[in-house]
């Protein structure tokens, strides 16, 4: 039995073809560990399903993660998001200490509106979708956050480890790690209701591709098939 539970976050907004494919990939990568799906609509995916009970927005994402973390029973949890592709080594090649929260740095971005090129930068970044951490450490950090701020200021409501010093909270023990195969994050236009307007989309499409670029990468090969699913 695995010591990890995957909290799978979806707002049920991504295209159906993609969603189905992405869940298959996730299921393979999960190596049979428990999956708790946190969705806006009921879903038959994973072992348990939590229906998101708040509005759309970043505060609620972390509230739902807290719910999922409390429902899980394993010592470690990992986040999986519906616009990312994971290989199993992302979840299992590195285990942080029980009181640590780790973020995978090996992240390729794919823009659905641009040429089919993977891109990335060698800058350390902590992204929620690539978090693997001690379950109790996540609970402790998020409970402290929401106890102090029922509504966290949006500019500081982000990944565990990023904003504690601004919010006057206990610093989380965070660290970066690198998986052997990369993870893929799709940048697309199906985020939330707030940023799907014409202006938001135009602004997003001006985003520059990152400097390290590739047409074909180990494990995932060419990006064409992923982008074709995302329509």
């Amino acid at each position, binding site marked *: 039995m695995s010591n990890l539970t995957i909290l799978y976050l979806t707002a049920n907004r991504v295209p159906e073809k993609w969603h189905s494919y992405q869940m298959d990939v996730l299921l393979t990568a999960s190596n049979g560990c428990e999956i708790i799906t946190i969705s806006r609509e009921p879903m038959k995916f994973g072992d348990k399903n939590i229906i998101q009970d708040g509005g759309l927005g970043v505060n609620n994402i972390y509230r739902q993660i807290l719910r999922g973390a409390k429902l899980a029973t394993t010592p470690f949890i990992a986040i999986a998001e519906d616009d990312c592709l994971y290989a199993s080594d992302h979840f299992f090649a590195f285990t942080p200490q029980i009181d640590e929260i780790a973020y995978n740095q090996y992240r390729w971005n794919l823009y659905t509106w641009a040429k089919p*090129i993977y891109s990335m930068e060698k800058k350390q970044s902590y992204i929620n979708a690539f978090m693997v951490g001690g379950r109790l450490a996540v609970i402790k950090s998020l409970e402290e956050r929401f106890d102090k701020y029922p509504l966290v200021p949006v500019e500081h409501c982000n990944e565990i480890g990023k904003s504690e010093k601004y919010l006057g909270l206990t610093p989380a023990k965070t660290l970066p790690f690198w998986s052997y195969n*990369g993870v893929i994050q799709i940048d697309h236009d199906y985020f939330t209701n707030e940023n799907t307007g014409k202006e938001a989309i135009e602004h997003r499409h001006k985003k520059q591709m990152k400097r*390290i670029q590739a047409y074909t990468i180990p494990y995932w090969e060419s990006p064409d098939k992923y982008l074709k699913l995302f329509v």
Partner: protein
Amino acid sequence: MIEQMTVIYLTASMLEKHKPHFAAYQKEVLLEAIKDTPIISVSREPLNFGHNILDDGKKCTDNIYRQMLRACKVAETKYVAVAEDDCLYHEFHFTFRRPCDNEVLYDRNRATLFTWGIPVYHWRNRLSNAALIAPREYLIDALEERYTKWPDGCPENRVGEVGRGMVERNLGVGLRNCCDTHAAKVAFIQVNHDWASEERQRKHRKSYGEIQAYDIPYWGRAEEILKHFR
């Protein structure tokens, strides 16, 4: 021509001798990138490539920096860029950014290829002299400071890139400003091979970098680039 720039081309003349096809290809690629930018080549054997200086020192890491200092003094432009004989450069490498007058710059978009093992580009998290672009006078000042402190040569186990804090602390010289957070839009490629000065390359003891790709913009598939090395 790249304005105010001289390219310092470093070669131990080993590839010229053992891999002449690659040596010719590499220079062709470099010329395409820099056009008629002045070149000062430093080689062990006479080389008809830019203004040629014969390397007069023993083969060691310290000597590479001594030869760079000689070349910097021959150059006349405000900036110099190092080009090594086992690297393939794109124009963007030389133009993507200019360092300030008191800093050295390293292009972080360096893809490495091994001539052994799996043909895959990979990126390591380390500075390389092959990626250096510097204001000429600032670089001269930094290198002269080293050789004032170490007139008989810097210790081999301490010498390394200008601007690397650990190297400069170990040498007991002033810490130079180093801009190492920027990357050109197209990677430059460094080929690791059996005729390199670095022992780890010759003995195939280097590990792959974390970021890996088979096929990248501008250069194409790794195995196609490596065909030039056969």
